[in-house]
Structures are given as structure tokens and as C-alpha cells.
């Protein structure tokens, strides 16, 4: 659950409107602030502008491939947590998916996605500049 007064912002990138609406409603109920994008167009600029704490990224989209978008995101934003969320488990075998924090297979039950979002946000807190 996100803390009141400091809502974590999540960006959902998915070309299916049904998914965007479902995820937005469920994650807002969990206390997150949610923004959405229906494609990869202008994604890097959107992330730079909106500074989300985490990105949930679909893989097979009509005009973009999520694994290529993930590469673009990692080049610009080294530490932003990214969760790949796909209807297909087969992309897990693609080495490009290693650059994601987690890989979740889409399901009507969002328990796993919510758990991975929590873990990815917790995991990003510690990574602060070293004082050594």
C-alpha cells in the first residue's frame, strides 16, 4: 500500500484499453497514482516528464515491441523499476527480458503483479549514491 501524502506514480504502457482501465482501477485502489500510455511513441519523453516511480510494460503491442522499449528505457533511466507484463510466457526466454525487474504473465488475478510492484519499489529505495 502506498503511503498517503507520497503516492508512488506508476506508468502503464499497454495497447489494450481494457487492460489499462483494469490496472489503473486496481492499482489506484492500492493507493498508487496511475498514468497510462497506449503505445511506445514518445515513451522516453513521457517518462522524463512524468518521472514515474515504476513502469508496467506490455511486450506484444501493435506498433512496438516491449523488449525493444525496455532497452530504450534502460539506456536513459538506469534504475527505474520496469515490470514486463505479457500474455505470453515465451518472451521470458529472450535475454533482453533480463533487463526488467520482474516478468509477470497477465492474469485476471492481479495478486502477482501487485506483489512484484511492491517488491520492485522496495528494491529501488536502497539504491542511493555511496558515501565511500
Amino acid at each position, binding site marked *: 500500500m502506498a503511503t498517503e501524502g507520497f503516492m508512488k506514480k506508476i506508468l502503464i504502457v499497454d495497447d489494450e484499453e481494457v487492460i489499462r482501465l483494469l490496472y489503473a482501477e486496481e492499482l489506484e485502489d492500492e493507493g498508487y497514482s496511475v498514468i497510462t500510455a497506449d503505445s511506445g511513441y514518445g515513451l522516453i519523453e513521457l517518462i522524463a516528464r512524468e518521472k514515474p516511480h515504476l513502469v508496467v510494460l506490455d511486450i506484444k503491442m501493435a506498433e512496438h515491441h516491449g523488449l525493444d522499449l525496455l*532497452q530504450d528505457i*534502460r*539506456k536513459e533511466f*538506469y*534504475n527505474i*523499476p520496469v515490470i514486463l507484463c505479457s500474455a505470453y510466457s515465451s518472451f*521470458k*526466454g529472450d*535475454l*533482453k527480458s*533480463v*533487463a*526488467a*525487474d520482474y516478468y509477470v504473465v497477465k492474469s485476471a488475478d492481479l495478486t502477482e503483479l501487485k506483489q512484484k510492484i511492491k*517488491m*520492485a519499489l*522496495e*528494491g*529501488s*529505495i*536502497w*539504491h542511493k*549514491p*555511496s558515501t*565511500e
Partner: protein
Amino acid sequence: MFIEKNPHNIKAAELVVGIPSYNEAERISYPTAKASEGLIEYFGDKTSVIINCDNNSRDGTREAFMSTTTEVPKIYISTPPGIKGKGSNLRNLFKKSCDLGAEAIVVVDADLKSITPRWIKNLAGPVLEGFGFVAPLYVRHKYDGTITNNIAYPLTRSVYGRRVRQPIGGDFAFSGRVADIYLKQPDWSQAVAEYGIDIWMTTTAICHDIPICQSYMGRPKIHKPKDPGESLGPMFLQVVGTMFDMMIEHVAFWKEVKWSKPTAIFGFGLGEMEQPPPVNVNVERLYEKFQEGIARHEALIKDILSGNHHRKLTEVKTLTLRDFEFPANLWAGVLIDFGVAYKNSLKKKEKIMEGLIPLYYGRTCSFVIESEPMTIQQAEDFIEDQCSVFEHAKPYLLKRWFE
């Protein structure tokens, strides 16, 4: 301090490829030639040099290296007679690279049979784009690299929170700034001077918040893979001993870490994935060494393990080879118990490590049996699941470490 042969009197280089060696006369020419091709093809606009950092080999390594035809100039440096170890060689490389003012330093193993010129591009390229440390990512046979799969990767990932799949891969790249950081580190043990150097470099980079990426090499690592039941050698003691030493050194960093983060990945677009050559493992021998070893070190193991872990191990010990399983959560707990014992012990660190070896044989035996029907990808998922078990054991590590 090193002996140097620098026939072209090279005083500066933007790119350095270092090849550490000891008695590699038969093999060193191949990676040397490929390194030169890679430097010319992909970084022809930069000044570069190939350095063989050797352990005063007596088999003609220096002559084989220096006589290899290359467009890129070469320098040979060596530890003085009597000083051995890969770490000693790399320390000389760090020093020489800093003297040359190198922007990027690539290290490749002298026994590599599968290196291509593209490896140089994929390792050096990310450094020139701003990354400080580049680890390799290659497809390996599921039984190649059992220390990596069962200790180095899951422990590094869970303790320090960075997912570096090949933290002791042997082929790396780093910036000149990172070479300088390495040179200034005070924790330079005998194990680091030998096989502990790879995990030391990776861990030092993580703990200094150096931007890290992994680069896909395109071809499998083909070198001299070993059956883990036949040839563990000093490598195990040096790698795991260095990991425990670094946990002691960097506790202020890792005690804050929860879960783990991925890294950026480079080097795609290379076409079909090539399958690695098979590695044969003698499971019966691993099982025998497990049973023999825990019988020999029974008192020590009982003294080190928590009561619960010792009870679980006693159960595992009763299993026949046909039903044998050494669960991942027990393995994570065992490693934590041994790490804590290592920290708390002042005198008998070597003895502690000897007690861990049979347990490692047990876990490796179980890994081989469980992953036998799996494809390489399925085995990767299996290793990832093991990492998740290690991450969930972090609260236990913190409790035991600070009690």
C-alpha cells in the same frame, strides 16, 4: 611491480585489452588475434594496445603472445618470479592501464576458444557510453559454472541487490576510473591475488555504485570446462572466501539492500543463438564426496549450522542417490550459517571453508539431478527460482549476522 617488454615504447592508449595468463603458450595467440581484429574493426579511430599480463610463465607464453601477428601493438608484463595468481596479473594490468591513461580496459581469458572480434566491441562499447563496469552475458551449458550458478550469482544478487549473471565470468570491461578505484582498495588478500579477483572486481564495482551493465557476447563461452566433482581445486576456497571477506568489508552497504535490481543489457542483434557444448558431470562421484565429506567434517558442520539446518541436513544425508535432493532453501541457510561462522572466527577460516565443500557437492549433485530433464532455458528459470529463495532468506542473514 612488474617486468615489462614494450617494444613499440607505447606511452598512452585509449583502449586496452588485457589477457591474464599462466602457461598458456598453446592458446594465447587466438584471443590475442581476435582482440586485435576487434580493436581495428570497431575502434579504429582510437589508440589501443593489447597487454599480456603473465605470471612469468616458463612454457613460452610470452614468445607466443609477442609473435602473434596483430595490427595493434602489444606489451608484455609479468609478475616477478615466485609471484603467482590471476589477481596479481590483473593488479599489474590496472596499474599499467592507469599509467597509459586508458578510457576503457577489456579483460579476456587466455584459454578462450570462442572469442570473436565482436566481443571486444560488446565489452568496450558500454564503457565508452558511460558504464563503469561491464560483465559478460553468454549462454552456458547448465552444468558449466556450478560455482557461479549455486553460489556466486545467487549470493551476490541477494546480498548486494544487483543481478549480475556471470559475476566470475572472466571476461569483463571497466573504465580507467574504475581501474584507479581497484588500485586504491586496501582489501587485497591472497585469495584476491589469485582466483578471488573476478568476484572481488564485480563486488567492488557494485559497492561503489559504479554503473554496471551486462553485455551479450553472442557466442557461448568455450574454454576448458571442468566436471565440478573432479576438479574443484583452490578456486572454490578463493572465490567463496573472497565473497565472505567482502561481506564483512561491505556490511554497511548490503544491510540496507532488499530484493534485487536488474542491469542494462547490451549487445543484441547478433542473430541465432548458438548452443554451448555439453558438459559431463559424474553425479555418483558428487554424491559420494557429499557423504564422505559430511562424515569427515561432522563435528565442524554441526557446530556451524543452526539447529534447524542441521536437522534438515541430517534428513538429506539419509536420502539415496535415486531420491537425492538438497533443497534450495536449505542451501541458502547453509551458506548464511557458514558466512556468519567465517565472520566470527579469527583463526580457522580455512577449516570452515573445508567443511562447506561437501555441502556444495551435495547441492551441486541435487542441481544436476533436478535439472537433468531441463532445457538450458528451463535450467535458467530454475536458477532464477533459487535466487528468489536466497532473496527471501535475507532477513535470516541479517538476524544471524548481527546477533
